[in-house]
């Protein structure tokens, strides 16, 4: 299922003194099975874009196409549930949405809202809880007795159990420790690779975007500043830095090395391994044996 935003504009509190233009003229394509990262500062409009992906917000101008449905500005839309079943959103701090007595009931809540039977929902809950790296014994516990990291995983399991075709992640690792962060990001990457789950990652982290995404969109002041493959985006780091945006640490290190040795490597490196290889080649060529 493809999703695409066509010249989307969104104004908050339209027609009141509080009216605020959040995004304008945003066009993004998310083909099925792709991994897209949306990066930008706080207030750049990335969360607004995200909420258009399953019609939580309807554009004030332009259109959003989700699979076979088109959500157009200025039209009343009914029966949006079908869209929401296919596009799951993991909001920032998703643990705030937990409410049931047991973890199992909470994970089953989403699927059962979409008409899945109780037995099937429970099967999905067992699946999902394993996927997020927790043991089945946790299903019987109250979500409020868990640690913050566990609650986060349970909330994510609640979205995974809906078995969406596309999953949208709004800074899923905010507030986690470095290890939990890597585990969660790897989990989503595995799902993306193994099941072909289309993934949209909204993040501040250039590292995560560079490491996982096939395609990156950079938002700036409500518009799309740049979009392309990670290598294209980061091949011109000066432009990003000029807009106050960061570049991955590896790339920053590469730039420093290039400057120190007064040279230019023939490759933009986005992972430690790549940079190690490039530098090894460079240094062996330079150093006397």
């Amino acid at each position: 299922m493809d999703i695409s935003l066509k010249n989307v504009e969104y104004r908050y509190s339209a027609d009141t003194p509080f009216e605020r233009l959040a995004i304008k003229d945003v066009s993004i394509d998310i083909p099925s099975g792709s991994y897209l990262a949306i990066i930008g500062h706080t207030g750049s409009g990335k969360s607004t874009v995200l909420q258009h992906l399953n019609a939580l917000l309807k554009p004030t101008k332009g259109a959003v196409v989700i699979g076979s449905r088109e959500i157009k500005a200025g039209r009343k839309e009914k029966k949006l549930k079908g869209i929401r079943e296919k596009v799951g959103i993991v909001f920032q701090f998703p643990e705030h949405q937990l409410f049931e007595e047991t973890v199992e009931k909470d994970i089953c809540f989403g699927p059962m809202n979409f008409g899945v039977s109780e037995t099937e929902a429970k099967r999905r809950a067992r699946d999902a809880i394993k996927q997020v790296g927790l043991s089945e014994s946790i299903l019987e516990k109250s979500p409020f007795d868990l640690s913050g990291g566990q609650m986060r995983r349970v909330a994510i399991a609640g979205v995974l159990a809906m078995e969406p075709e596309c999953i949208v992640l709004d800074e899923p690792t905010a507030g986690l420790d470095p290890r939990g962060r890597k585990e969660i990001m790897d989990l989503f990457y595995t799902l993306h690779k193994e099941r072909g789950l289309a993934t949209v990652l909204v993040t501040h982290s250039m590292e995560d975007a560079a490491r996982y995404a096939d395609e990156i969109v950079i938002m700036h002041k409500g518009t799309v500043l740049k979009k392309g493959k990670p290598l294209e985006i980061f091949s011109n780091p000066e432009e990003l830095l000029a807009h106050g945006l960061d570049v991955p640490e590896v790339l920053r290190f590469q730039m420093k090395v290039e400057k120190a040795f007064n040279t230019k490597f023939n490759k933009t490196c986005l992972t430690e391994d790549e940079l190690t290889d490039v530098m090894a080649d460079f240094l062996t060529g330079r150093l006397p044996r």
Partner: protein
Amino acid sequence: MMEKMIIGRYVPADSILHRMDPRSKLIIVFLFVCVIFLANNIWTYGILVLYTFLMASFSKIPARFLIGGLKPVLWLVLFTFFLHLFLTKEGAVILDFGWFKVYEEGLRQGIFISLRFFLLILITSLLTLTTTPIEITDGLERLLGPLKKVKFPVHELALMMSIALRFIPTLMQETDKIIKAQTARGVEYSSGPIKERLKAVVPLLIPLFISSFKRAEELAVAMEARGYKGGEGRTKYRQLSWAVADTLMIVGLLFVSILLLVFRG
């Protein structure tokens, strides 16, 4: 979803009403609530309507926004109207459907009482629209100051009020956020049968309660960490200043009250 509500909201602008001392605004609203009961005929209601609209125009708040924001309470006003229309059985019959009659007094009462209701809401909205919550509590604390002599906890009351008011927007945001999260999990808040919609309140209220308690605790700790220990000996950063305009506004309302006394039937 609640972005069009204006009750309890502050709209920054530079107008006479915005610049007034919160104490005088509070006195005026209180006085208005009392004198509105003096009105009992077309002339006196006319004066009140005129007065309210004059105040609204002083506030420099766009009329369209003001009316739009009052829409939700309009239902309540309409309800009051029909209640009086159907239940008052005095005076001449103006409409006769056989099984049901509309009496002259009923129509009169309906119009007047719902108008009174509407004016009250408008005036109090004007207060909150032009005064920041902090100003309102400051003003209230000062006005109630004399009660301290009889051991009334004025400062604590004002603090409770300002905390409550301060967290209204936060709570609204939180509500909005959780509604969105649960909508994404297949709950329908804006359509579907009433029974389903009532059931949908549970996944909204529980997270809200939990986060509110958590926040209250954090706030208490933060206040204690910064050495808060009640109002004793506490000075104010924002000083209230009573200007000539404040006195004039109160005199204006007193004048209106006299007019009401003269013209009431």
